[in-house]
């Protein structure tokens, strides 16, 4: 790799073995074991991402939440955690939050913010207060003083009631009439000698007397009704007096106890207000406290008795009416050190914003504010919340819920079932809690770009982007940093350390993973996996340190584990089921190279490409496209061929050529333009009628000027053809043509390098089609001369001559058709 002034010099021609694989000079690393190396401050190579994360965490402005994008396993999660935890440790822990009963609207529990660590104290204080009240209030109402005063109220009302009836009785008695109870009320009966007049005796009375009795009774009935109408008023007076008495006694008992708590939380206005409401409610529902112990216990059982006079909600819920005076501590930071850093692995709506649980009671689902459960946004309030974007987007309503929380800057407990009105049951609408959380989303680049493109709110909410780097330049400094990173992984994962050769081999494998001899992959997931597998083989070998051999073993064994499909593919070629020639020469036939990626497996394999030509209208027919097996990039490559032919051979006269190109024995889709140079070679061979050496395979795309351009997967493609050749026996004539721009990407297997070093296999770096066709055919391509012609016998001259023949034949045919009225 010759680098000058930061620009690579293009390497053309047959490559030497040292150019095929860059080695790490492990002897220069300067340590015996990675155990000597200190951990890096952060994952190396991620300075840009680190700066972005620190910026995003630091800026306290609306919408500056973070989106950290990078491939799975790139170490973004651990990097963010490391940075945020360091930062959070220096920040103050956030407030505690409790939910309490809303006495005015029981279905909308109130949230109270308390200073850090005060939540537990408040909750316990309320529980203690209720316990005290349950003892103190019955004692007060069982006192002699209360009994006497209550009795006095009853007596007073009864005396007035009695007095009213005595007046009636006296009037009745004067008229020999008496009141008698009936099953449903009261009636008046006429008497004679103190006894009821029997119906027969009544009938025997003179009519005037009968009428008088009847009139007297009717008059008394009227008076009785008037007296009765006073009764509800008397009863109302009694209840009012009793209520006032209860209020007086309750107030005395309750105020004293609640004043203690009021004093304990005097600094918090919300608590003071809440305690005022508690006091008022206890006084209004004092009968809950005055019940006998047996009734209280019964009421605390599931489905237990309900209280009189309470509001229906609390009664219908859990049976224990005293729950209403408790506090549901949903955020307790009493043991939190610094700001919280919470990672939510299952970001459902309920896991994010909390939920209201229900219990089944008598066949119905009921709840109360004590069943409110916090979500990740509650736990992370005042700190940082980390969520995987893919997991978030896969949960129904979760993304919308999170956005709404961030926009409104509050956490509102919502249930998907409620949103869809799927469940009809008693539920709550807890008061939202102000949100002061920095949300960090992780995701792949595609997720970020899709959200940016399709969600207009996304950019406004996630204004900070941190993108994880995938590679770093391979330099002596990065080798050292890589070694330190390996040391850190060893320590964190209880993996044995590496010797310099092991580090060197890991560095080389990182370059191979980057598919670039000038870059190192810093994909932490892959590095750590390989290291763990190398540790396994080192352990098997009883080695103290991981060496290059163990890393190589890990690489080889992984290849073997996942290599079944590759072997089957190669076997189909070596058994001549898929026809690939690796020797001889054929006109209009060439070995192209493709890469198959299935899961972790990625391997190259040759494919026979053939071209057939004839007289036509200057069209190159892509059979793959015609049968809809070719992708757009492949079709583009084929169309470029037409452009090349027109530019080079169609200037003087139109091309009268029809050519068809096909990937033989290809039954799946074909895409990409990396075979376009091979197709052009094949086409030129067919037109010029010059055979192509089948001992070569070709990769590279081509432009309309005939320049060969870089492609991907160059290492896999070379190794794929090499393996076929090895299986059939290396002849010393076999090789691969690659774009010269891909030379810098070569990190080939050692056996390939060795074969090239031994002259048994060849790799040619090609920069133009002319260069390539000469290698493939052994015939000079021929440069265009000043008169536009090509040297005699050259490929280009043969192509030009053949096309000129086609053109003439076409004209002749067109003339005949015109004479006879036919069209071609």
């Amino acid at each position: 790799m010759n680098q000058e002034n930061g620009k690579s010099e293009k390497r053309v021609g047959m490559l030497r073995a040292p150019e095929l694989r860059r080695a790490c000079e492990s002897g220069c690393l300067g340590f015996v074991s990675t155990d000597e190396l200190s951990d890096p401050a952060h994952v190396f190579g991620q300075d840009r991402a680190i700066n972005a994360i620190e910026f995003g965490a630091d800026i306290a402005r609306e919408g500056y939440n973070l989106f950290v994008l990078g491939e799975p396993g790139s170490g973004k999660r651990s990097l963010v955690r490391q940075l945020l935890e360091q930062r959070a440790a220096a920040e103050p822990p956030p407030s505690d939050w409790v939910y309490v009963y809303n006495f005015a609207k029981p279905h909308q529990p109130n949230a109270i913010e308390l200073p850090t660590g005060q939540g537990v104290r408040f909750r316990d204080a309320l529980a203690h207060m209720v316990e005290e009240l349950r003892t103190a209030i019955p004692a007060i109402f069982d006192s002699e003083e209360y009994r006497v005063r209550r009795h006095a109220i009853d007596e007073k009302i009864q005396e007035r009631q009695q007095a009213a009836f005595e007046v009636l009785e006296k009037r009745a008695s004067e008229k020999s009439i008496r009141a008698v109870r009936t099953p449903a009320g009261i009636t008046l009966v006429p008497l004679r000698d103190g006894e009821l007049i029997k119906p027969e005796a009544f009938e025997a009375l003179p009519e005037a007397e009968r009428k008088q009795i009847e009139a007297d009774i009717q008059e008394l009935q009227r008076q009785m009704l008037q007296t009765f109408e006073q009764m509800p008023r008397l009863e109302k007076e009694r209840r009012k007096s009793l209520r006032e008495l209860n209020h007086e006694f309750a107030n005395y008992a309750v105020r004293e106890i609640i004043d203690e708590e009021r004093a304990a939380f005097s600094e918090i206005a919300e608590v003071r207000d809440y305690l005022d409401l508690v006091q008022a409610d206890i006084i209004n529902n004092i009968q809950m406290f005055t019940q006998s112990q047996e009734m209280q216990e019964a009421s605390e059982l599931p489905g237990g008795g309900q209280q009189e006079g309470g509001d229906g909600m609390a009664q219908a819920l859990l049976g224990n009416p005293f729950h209403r005076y408790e506090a549901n501590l949903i955020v307790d930071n009493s043991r939190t050190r610094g700001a919280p850093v919470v990672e939510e692995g299952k970001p459902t709506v309920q896991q994010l914003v909390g939920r209201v649980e229900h219990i089944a009671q008598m066949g119905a689902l009921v709840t109360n504010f004590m069943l409110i459960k916090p979500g990740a946004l509650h736990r992370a309030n005042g700190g940082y919340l980390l969520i995987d974007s893919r997991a978030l987007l896969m949960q129904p309503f979760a993304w919308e819920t999170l956005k709404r929380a961030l926009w409104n800057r509050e956490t509102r407990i919502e249930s998907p079932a409620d949103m869809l009105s799927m469940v009809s049951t008693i539920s709550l609408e807890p008061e939202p809690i102000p949100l002061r959380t920095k949300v960090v989303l992780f995701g792949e680049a595609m997720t970020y770009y899709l959200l940016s493109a399709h969600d207009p709110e996304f950019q406004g909410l996630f204004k900070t982007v941190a993108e994880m780097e995938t590679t770093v330049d391979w330099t002596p400094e990065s080798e050292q940093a890589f070694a330190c990173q390996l040391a850190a992984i060893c320590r964190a994962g209880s993996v044995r350390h590496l010797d310099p050769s092991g580090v060197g081999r890991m560095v080389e494998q990182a370059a191979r993973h980057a598919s670039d001899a000038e870059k190192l992959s810093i994909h932490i997931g892959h590095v750590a996996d390989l290291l763990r597998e190398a540790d396994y083989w080192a352990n098997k070998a009883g080695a103290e340190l991981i060496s290059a051999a163990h890393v190589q073993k890990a690489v080889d064994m992984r290849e073997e584990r996942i290599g079944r499909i590759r072997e089957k593919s190669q076997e189909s070629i070596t058994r001549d089921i898929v026809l690939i020639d690796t020797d001889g020469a054929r006109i209009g036939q060439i070995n192209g190279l493709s890469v198959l990626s299935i899961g972790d497996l990625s391997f190259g394999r040759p494919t026979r490409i053939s071209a057939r030509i004839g007289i036509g209208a200057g069209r190159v027919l892509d059979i793959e496209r015609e049968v809809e097996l070719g992708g757009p990039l492949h079709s583009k490559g084929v169309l470029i061929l037409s452009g090349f032919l027109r530019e080079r051979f169609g200037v003087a006269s139109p091309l009268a050529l029809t050519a068809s190109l096909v990937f033989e024995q290809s039954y799946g889709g074909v895409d990409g333009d990396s075979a376009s140079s091979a197709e052009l070679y094949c086409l030129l061979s067919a037109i010029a009628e010059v055979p192509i050496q089948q001992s070569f395979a070709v990769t590279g795309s081509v432009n309309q000027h005939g320049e060969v351009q870089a492609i991907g997967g160059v290492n896999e493609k070379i190794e794929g053809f090499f393996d076929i050749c090895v299986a059939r026996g290396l002849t010393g004539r076999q090789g691969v043509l690659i774009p010269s721009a891909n030379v810098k990407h070569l990190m080939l297997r050692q056996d390939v390098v060795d074969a090239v070093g031994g002259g048994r296999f060849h790799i040619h770096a090609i920069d133009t089609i002319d260069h390539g066709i000469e290698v493939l055919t052994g015939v000079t391509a021929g440069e265009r001369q000043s008169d536009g012609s090509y040297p005699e016998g050259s490929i280009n001259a043969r192509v030009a001559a053949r096309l000129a023949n086609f053109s003439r034949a076409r004209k002749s045919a067109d003339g005949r058709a015109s004479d006879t009225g036919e069209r071609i």
Partner: protein
Amino acid sequence: MSQQAEPGPKPRYHRLLIGFNHHTECRSVLGFAAQVSQAAGVELAGVFVEDQDLLDLARLPFSAEILSSSRQTRNLDFNSIEGELRAIAWQMQRSLRILAERTKRQYSFRTVRGHLLRALIAQVEAGDLVLLRTACVPWPSTKPAMSIIGDIRGPVVLLEPPGSGNGNLVALAQEIARIMKQELVVLREYSGPQTLRSLNAGLIIAPAALLSADAAGNGVEHFVDAAPCPVLLVPETG
């Protein structure tokens, strides 16, 4: 040679007779009656008395009642009254049965027609105790019915004529007082209801002879009307 202790008088009571009529307050005596029957070890015997006066009244052409629930007036109809009384009797019987099962006492129930106390006294047989409570206040009370049970507090008062030496009656009174967790007061000189009120009696136990009831039970009726609490009448004291 040891002297054998004289055996105590054996209880001779078999039933506790409880009278009901259509007054709802009558039901409040049920719980109390169960306690007494347990204390006395006797069967519960309910007697529902369909008030003859009420039935006669219903046959008068102009009779009407004022409904206590709605304060509305409606005409009294004999058949309706009779049906309502039967319904109340059925409820009483059911309540008594449940109570007897709960307290593991035997029970019986019968319906008669007449006047409460007289009809009840007419049912008395040898070995019966009679729990009396007239509850004849004509006016609907402002007190809830349940509170009447709660009012049965205060000592058990035994009216015992001097020199009667009725060991069975004393033993019964002691047992009842023990179970009811009340003091037993033995009153040898009864000078009228005022005495009982001053004692704040919770239950009065009285031998029938002491109250000089006539054949129709009128003396008893007078006593019970004046009594401030339920009366356990012991017709035959043996």
